């Protein structure tokens, strides 16, 4: 584990930005997001968690799949430089791994590149993610529900802890190993540093609320399918997509053509299962026409369906949806209500 003194942070960042497209938390409150930075002054180092997750860089809200002119088709998948992400919280680092299972890989056709998303892969495969331990989880955080923790080392290529005077960094993956090997002139973390990590970790964990077990919820969910509780929990939902668009693991998208027949572009743009039109078919038939069905779909997908395919939940407990929902439809409350429901098996 190496030690980057805060007094050297500026130089460290400067050097990084020469070799990588460097992304880090920028901006305050609702404007905060991961954006490309050139120097340390641009980085918001005190933010608990950005409003917009790193998803917005790897799977942008809108991106051009290709441009066409006549029959000629041009596409650009690869970023100019590999990306380095500084300061990703463990929940978000895990989200990227979950998204990679869907976008970068294919459970159903694991060996066929035609079923891997080329744009995602071009960005994600070469990117280095530095997971920054969460010294002060927010009251809306619930990473402990789905197997996470503020100091989790489960995801990312590098792991770092911010102490009073320094960032302590260690590798988590091969990419991370190679990165650390390439660094020179940094001290190794001392015993005292390691003690302060332990102390910070204990304090961070004490801020979290008791966890609800996501696996119990997963087992329970099929029984709730017809439960009138879904009417109750979906009643206040206004079917916007604030929760989904702000979610670090929601990945649904639409593909559309813009321009004219002889010249234009095919784009993809985020879409959302909360919108009635998402599943509406050309015939007018809509398999999920009711708010109850759509809210149920979102909860089921996060806490059941994804688990059935990949063995874990598609929620990392970042709490963003809890904060942005305009009607305070709190996913944690929904989960608790479902667990308590006396649904017939």
């Amino acid at each position, binding site marked *: 584990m190496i030690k980057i003194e805060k007094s050297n942070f500026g130089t460290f960042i400067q050097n990084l930005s020469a070799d990588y497209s460097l992304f880090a938390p920028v901006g305050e409150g609702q404007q905060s997001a991961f954006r490309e930075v050139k120097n340390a002054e641009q980085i918001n180092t005190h933010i608990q968690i950005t409003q917009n997750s790193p998803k917005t860089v790897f799977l942008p809200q809108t991106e051009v799949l290709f441009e066409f002119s006549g029959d000629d088709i041009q596409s650009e998948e690869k970023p100019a430089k590999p990306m380095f992400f500084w300061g990703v919280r463990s929940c978000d680092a895990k989200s990227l791994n979950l998204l990679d299972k869907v976008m970068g890989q294919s459970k159903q056709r694991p060996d066929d590149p035609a079923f891997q998303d080329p744009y995602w892969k071009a960005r994600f495969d070469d990117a280095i993610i530095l997971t920054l331990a969460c010294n002060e989880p927010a009251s809306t955080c619930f990473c402990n529900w789905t197997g996470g923790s503020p100091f989790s080392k489960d995801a990312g290529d590098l792991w770092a802890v911010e102490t009073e005077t320094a960032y302590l960094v260690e590798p988590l993956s091969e990419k991370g190993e190679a990165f650390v090997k390439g660094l020179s002139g940094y001290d190794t973390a001392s015993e005292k540093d390691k003690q302060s990590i332990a102390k910070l970790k204990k304090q961070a964990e004490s801020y979290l609320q008791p966890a609800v077990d996501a696996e119990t919820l997963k087992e329970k969910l099929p029984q709730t399918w017809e439960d009138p509780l879904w009417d109750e929990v979906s*009643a206040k939902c206004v079917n916007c997509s604030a929760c989904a668009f702000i979610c670090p693991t929601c990945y649904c998208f639409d593909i559309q053509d813009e321009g004219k027949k002889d010249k234009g572009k095919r784009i993809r743009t985020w879409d959302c299962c909360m*919108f009635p039109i998402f599943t509406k078919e050309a015939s007018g038939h809509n398999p999920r026409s009711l708010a109850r069905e759509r809210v149920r779909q979102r909860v089921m997908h996060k806490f059941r369906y994804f688990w059935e395919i990949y063995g874990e939940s598609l929620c990392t407990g970042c709490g963003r949806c*809890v904060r942005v929902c305009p009607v*305070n439809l709190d996913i*944690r409350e929904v989960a608790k209500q479902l667990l308590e429901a006396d649904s017939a098996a």
Partner: protein
Amino acid sequence: MVKALREEVKRLFEEKKVDLVIGWGKGSLPMTATPIFINKAEDAERLIWDETCSNNLAVYLTKDKRQLVKTDQKIGIVVKGCDGRSLVLYAVENQIQRENLVIIGVPCAGVIDKKKVLKHIEGKEVLSASFEADRMTVEGRGFKTEIAKCDVLSDSCLNCNHPNAPVFDVFIGEPRKSDSVEDVYPDVEAFEKLDSEARWKTMVEAYSKCIRCYACRNVCPSCYCTECFVDQNDPQWIGKSPEITDTLIFHLGRNLHVAGRCVECGACERACPADIDLLKLNRKISKEILERFNFTAGLDINEKPALASFCENEKQDFIMG
């Protein structure tokens, strides 16, 4: 006040005057109330009424939410001034059956805008909040701050002359005396002073932040089309991506569709996850309509909307330029 509200709702259930009551309950976060739907007398205890009750509940009587309301069901709805104005709008536009509604008015001294509080404390996390007549106290890890309420009231409440529902069946406590603000729209002055180029720039800047989540539209009581033009796909009127031209068409289209119908409740602005100043343009339009037609939306159940009626003595200078 809250006690009186709960007693009243309980009585309405006991006297079988309502089957369902839409009101506000305690939310899961500090400074946050949440819409609740209660269908029995004992649940009246869950109702609250305070400066956190910022959602406009009228929205639950239209749109997709019509499914909540069964035919012939008697609905009680707790309303502050602006929610009540939305109900007047609905009555004028034939969206509700007035006789099936029991309107429960509550006096409103303004609701707070959480985003303003967070800006005030520079993004720190609020773990608890308490309210007094003219100030609030917020606490978090390592801080405790007092804030004057007027600094964090929703923009929509700052110059409001309509603290009570214009039409109601029961009123909890005394209707609040209006402040009789003379200049209702001081907040749009700065925008008005800009030339058209600068106005355009301001709008483009503001709306470029939009993520097209439609939270503003979906919480807006005046936006109740069963299928919004932005959602239609055959033909598709506008692009789905947050490309600025498409985003502007959405927002400006919405501004025009709610012109003369907006009750300026500010729900759009408070709902926006991208922190866009959404209310300003609506208020500018409302101001124009007030000046030209002496009309304010949602006040008189017998008055036709300004843009849906014609009087010979109306100002017509815009026709001749």
